[in-house]
């Protein structure tokens, strides 16, 4: 044990002596590893970032909300099975809530009808198109993840009488009332005047597809009065315990079938959607991107590893006589093997640490330049890349080091 320790110390001494003595060569070799590690860790950082952005987007849908809709959130190949499904009505929500109340220890809390339609909105001279209009009840506040930043949500009374009041998403408020508060102002939606009673807190984009801030929430009865029932209605059902989402979904399915009066064996004539469905569809894509990205960047690390292997072969060749001398003085195979492995690992480790520094600086700089970009430089990633550098050193240094350790001392001593 003591011997191994002394040998290790000596090996590190030799390794750093070698690196110093062959500074240029070592730097060039390490450069290969640096580039490899930078590529891999930047890729890892990007993948982490994608993951975080993705989860942030999904969280906007609400982790504890089930969506009852006509269509599922996935591709369907048998559209004819869906197209004739009965639409969801406000009444469906009312009957569903009665079932939920009647169920002892129900996993569901409340079902909220939400009518959605695209619209344009005006305030004075300013006009904004492509806005999502949500018509809903006073319970809406219970199911959304956003806070009301200014003002308030409409209450049950306002909702049931269909008073023309509305709550604006932050983008809508900023665009229609630049530089001033939108609160208590009037907006025109399809010719009808609504009074702004609240403004939602900023939420951001959903998977970069559309903005959750580009919305208006108004009482369902007001929206339906205007749309004449043409608005697309969905039910959002809040779950009491998000850890039991699957069981809640099952209960909801049963409750909906009762409400719809469906017979046993009959196929559901509604779909229950949740954020998990997105996850399931996007996870394989995400995994594919990660795999491809790591494979491609891994290739550059592989090139770096070849550089290390090459230089270790050169180092062994150059010092064949020294190996012979060391063996004559009592160095064992293990000693020689360790010596060259440690040399290879040291260069890799130095390269890895420099590479890590470069990545850290790059991601900090990127984060400062583009704050919206989700960049995640994690300690786990740091640990992994240090580990990867060490493994690279061991793998690429092994063949030459093994060869050195097996050298016949007689042959090695005679080598010039």
């Amino acid at each position: 044990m003591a011997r191994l320790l002394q040998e290790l110390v000596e090996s590190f001494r030799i390794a750093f002596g070698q690196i110093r003595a062959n500074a240029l060569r070592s730097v060039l070799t390490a450069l290969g590893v640096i580039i490899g590690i930078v590529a891999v860790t930047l890729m890892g950082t990007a993948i982490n970032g994608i993951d975080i952005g993705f989860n942030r987007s999904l969280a906007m849908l609400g982790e504890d909300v089930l969506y009852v809709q006509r269509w599922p959130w996935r591709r369907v190949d048998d559209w004819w099975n869906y197209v004739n499904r009965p639409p969801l009505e406000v009444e469906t929500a009312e009957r569903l809530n009665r079932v939920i109340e009647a169920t002892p220890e129900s996993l569901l809390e409340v079902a909220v009808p939400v009518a959605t339609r695209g619209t344009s909105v005006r305030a004075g001279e300013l006009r904004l198109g492509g806005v999502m209009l949500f018509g809903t009840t006073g319970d809406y506040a219970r199911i959304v993840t956003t806070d009301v930043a200014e003002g308030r949500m409409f209450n049950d009374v306002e909702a049931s009488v269909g008073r023309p009041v509305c709550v604006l998403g932050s983008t809508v408020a900023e665009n229609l009332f630049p530089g001033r508060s939108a609160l208590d102002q009037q907006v025109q939606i399809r010719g009808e005047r609504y009074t702004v009673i609240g403004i939602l807190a900023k939420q951001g984009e959903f998977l970069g597809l559309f903005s959750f801030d580009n919305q208006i929430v108004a009482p369902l009865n007001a929206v339906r009065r205007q749309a004449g029932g043409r608005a697309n209605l969905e039910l959002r059902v809040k779950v009491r315990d998000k850890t039991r989402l699957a069981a809640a979904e099952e209960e909801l399915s049963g409750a909906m079938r009762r409400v719809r009066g469906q017979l046993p064996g009959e196929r559901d004539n509604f779909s229950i959607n949740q954020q998990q469905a997105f996850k399931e569809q996007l996870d394989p894509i995400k995994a594919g991107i990660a795999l491809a990205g790591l494979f491609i960047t891994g290739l550059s690390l592989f090139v770096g590893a070849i550089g290390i292997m090459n230089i270790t072969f050169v180092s062994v060749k150059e010092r064949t006589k020294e190996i012979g001398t060391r063996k004559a003085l009592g160095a064992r195979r293990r000693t020689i093997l360790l010596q060259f492995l440690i040399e290879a690992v040291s260069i890799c480790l130095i390269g890895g640490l420099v590479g890590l520094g470069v990545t850290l600086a790059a991601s900090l700089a990127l984060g400062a330049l583009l704050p919206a970009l989700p960049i995640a430089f994690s300690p786990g990633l740091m640990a992994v890349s240090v580990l990867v550098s060490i493994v690279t050193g061991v793998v690429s240094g092994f063949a030459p080091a093994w060869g050195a350790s097996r050298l016949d001392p007689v042959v090695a001593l005679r080598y010039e």
Partner: protein
Amino acid sequence: MVIRIEGVTKLYRMGAETIHALRGVNLEIRRNEYLAIMGPSGSGKSTLMNMLGCLDTPSAGRYDFNGKDVARMVDDELAEIRNREIGFVFQTFNLLPRSDALHNVELPLIYAGLSPAVRRERALVALRNVGLGDRIHHKPNEMSGGQRQRVAIARALVNHPSILLADEPTGNLDSRTGEEIMALFEDLYEQGHTIIVVTHEEDIARHARRVVRLRDGLIESDGPVP
């Protein structure tokens, strides 16, 4: 008896040809002998030296070192014997160029697993014994040939080996420096060391007390220096 060799042969295969480097050698070396091994090139002199130094093992025959059969030992066991029992002195000194004298002398002790403090102390003593107590931090390229060979001798002796095995120790030195090194060997012999010098120079062999002459893989003569 330090070394007993009985009927040792060594074969090398060079392609289709088999070379008999040693054809049955018997040799006994006692403690505190001063022996010269001589012979022209191709006589098997180097092979015998490699065998004596446990750098190589015989194809057949027996080799006992301090009563241990080393002929059948594997690499790492031989390394252990070399580390503890044999001090090598090479023609080309074979010092580590980037290490100072002290570290060069410490090397066998590192492989023996000794702590830095003990190593340093013993290396200092060994360097002082060869008259280099004031050169311990000099690197090989800062020293003369004679000084380098002294460092090598200090390195060979630092682990208190049973034999000192020198291969043409004066081959790379001028004759005056060579004589100094031989004088040092004489001192070591007087102190009780066992010394084996492999050489082709009669002048060098004359310093020893016994000369073994090889020819064509066999011992031609073995006797005291006239």
